């Protein structure tokens, strides 16, 4: 789960990570008022969307007075922000954060992610702040200093200091940085984050360390024990179909192609997308109905696929293990009757109760094409999507 920058700063601030004073606004008047309350001097107005690259896209602007803050807010609020992470359609900016300025001496980077190779969370720090860490990793991997830590011991004091010294900090900044790194690690573990990033982490001319930007992604599997985090979800920022699917326990991701897919199991669902492309088509979605899908889930999965206007043909590929083929067949028939099939349907069933499943499909009277294996299914559905 993703959250906004201002929310990430609230989370980190509660753990003792220093942030600048800020306010969250939805109208230019509120922005002007907030700029006045922050002292009337220089502020930065930042679009709050769940995507990186906001500055380059025109979603972050400086203002030197409350009036100027109002003017830039008028430009940013309501704009469609397009960045390398939003896709070509961009996202609508509904919220901005107004934040006081500070005098920056250096820009650093600090971030935590799970390192799969060691199976431990790793705090990465770099003296090259303000740049994407992937870019630093690709061009200058030596510049990234890493410390792995165990969740229940946290980042140890000497590890935090080692990072601070490696970044070239000195004097009182070392202790401040070490406390900040330790706090970041604690927040990462306690809130079940999957990524926690401060970029840039600035050193001010006074030697203070401040999180000038912050990003936290959360592990969906940890939300059950972090209700405060779950409450920060912004429904306007997520794909409506993806959200509805998630509520039903379906895993759905919208893609750009024309072949709608309904598959059980994530690996088989990915493989089905691959086989469609292998035969010249493009998948319209990834959809895993899961291991224990019910009639209702299958019907709803179908409904979600049919609501996608790009879909020109549908492939149902089920390997029934726990999920029985007759349940899938009944779901397909029920959905097709209820929703009315506007596009060709190809079904490939294998596994538990497959004979019964095929019989249900055959006796339903619904116009569908039965496929014998994955290759046959892909060829047939790609041809159907192309109108052949």
């Amino acid at each position, binding site marked *: 789960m993703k959250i906004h920058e201002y929310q990430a700063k609230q989370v980190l601030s509660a753990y003792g990570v220093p942030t600048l004073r800020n306010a969250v606004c939805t109208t230019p008047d509120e922005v002007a008022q907030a700029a006045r309350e922050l002292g009337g001097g220089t502020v930065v107005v930042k679009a709050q969307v769940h995507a990186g690259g906001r500055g380059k896209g025109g979603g972050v602007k400086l203002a030197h007075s409350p009036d100027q803050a109002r003017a830039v807010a008028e430009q940013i609020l309501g704009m469609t922000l397009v960045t390398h992470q939003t896709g070509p359609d961009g996202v609508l900016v509904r919220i901005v954060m107004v934040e006081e300025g500070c005098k920056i001496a250096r820009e650093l980077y600090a971030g935590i992610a799970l390192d*799969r190779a060691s199976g431990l969370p790793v705090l990465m720090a770099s003296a090259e702040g303000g740049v994407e860490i992937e870019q630093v990793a690709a061009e200058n991997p030596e510049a990234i200093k890493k410390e792995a830590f165990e969740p229940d011991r946290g980042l140890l004091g000497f590890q935090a200091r080692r990072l601070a010294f490696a970044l070239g900090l000195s004097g009182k900044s070392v202790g401040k940085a070490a406390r900040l790194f330790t706090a970041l690690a604690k927040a990462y573990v306690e809130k079940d984050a999957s990524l926690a990033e401060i970029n840039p982490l600035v050193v001010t001319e006074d030697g203070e360390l401040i999180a000038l930007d912050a990003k936290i992604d959360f592990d969906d*599997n940890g939300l059950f024990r972090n209700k405060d985090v779950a409450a920060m979800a912004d429904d306007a920022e997520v794909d409506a179909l993806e959200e509805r699917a998630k509520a039903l326990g379906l895993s759905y991701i919208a893609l750009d192609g024309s072949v709608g897919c309904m598959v059980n199991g994530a690996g088989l669902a990915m493989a089905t997308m*691959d086989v469609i492309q292998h035969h010249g088509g493009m998948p319209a979605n990834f959809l895993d109905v899961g291991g224990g899908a019910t009639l209702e889930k299958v019907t709803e999965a179908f409904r979600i696929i049919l609501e996608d206007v790009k879909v020109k043909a549908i492939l149902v590929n089920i390997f029934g293990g726990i999920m029985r083929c007759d349940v899938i067949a009944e779901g397909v028939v029920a959905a097709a009757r209820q929703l009315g099939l506007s596009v060709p349907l190809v079904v490939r069933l294998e596994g538990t109760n497959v004979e019964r499943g095929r019989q249900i499909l055959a006796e339903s009277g619904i116009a569908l094409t039965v496929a014998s294996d994955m290759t046959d299914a892909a060829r047939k559905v790609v041809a159907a999507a192309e109108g052949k």
Partner: protein
Amino acid sequence: MSILVNANSRILVQGLTGATGSFHAKECAAYHDTKIVAGVTPGKGGLVHEGVPVFDTVADAVRETGANVSLIFVPPPFAADAVMESADAGVPLAVCVTEGIPAIDEVRIKLALEGSATRMIGPNCPGIITPEECKVGIMPGYIHKKGRVGVVSRSGTLTYEAVWQLSERGIGQSTCLGIGGDPVIGTTFVDALALFLEDPGTDAVVMIGEIGGSAEEEAAAFYTASGSKKPIASFVAGATAPPGKRMGHAGAIISGGKGTAAEKKAALAAAGIGVAESPADMGVTMARMMVERDLAPASVLD
């Protein structure tokens, strides 16, 4: 021959009395020689559930029944504790089917198992099966056929697909296991390959990977270093997955341009591992390699 489980395995089920545990324990027990000897549900010790004695603790179950494999269906909030309890009781193999365990808890499990005598398979996996002997998991038993090909996979239903393709061609399996789709898992491709390459009952291996992480690259490096002549056929799911989107499995995500199917396929091919370009060709890719090495009759290519 086989790896990790066989007709002599004695299985205890953690979470036996829940709906999922109950259903699958029965399915396992009905499969050939599989022995479900105990269930563990805290507070229900002393009950007999569908003919299986239930204990309050894993230690009690092990002491009373000699169980040496635990099959875990405990819900995500309590699953890490369940695995650690098995390790504490000295159970050599813990198969954790549970999906949805927080990644930080998986890190905790990994740390707890370091230096212990327990190996975990999973979590978020279908389990392990030695065909026509012992089924410890949720896979459909009937698609499997006894034989000499090991199957190891990060995904569940795609494993069934691969097994089905092999069985349809008359190629049987020694043992098939799903290692799970999460970022931190107990048994890796490298661990499973090490066991299969050593197993005299396994002539060849099918390995099914997916996007995200570097487990496939590590397996390729391990195979090269092993010097083994046993052929391996592979498939990597997710060639068409967009970066930054989590494809169902928590571990299946391309991030920072790393973990793509193309990179993985290149590493596998460079190690001499056969790579199926289409998931429909997993079985035939293995069949061709086996026929070339006289490990299977030409009829498996039909």
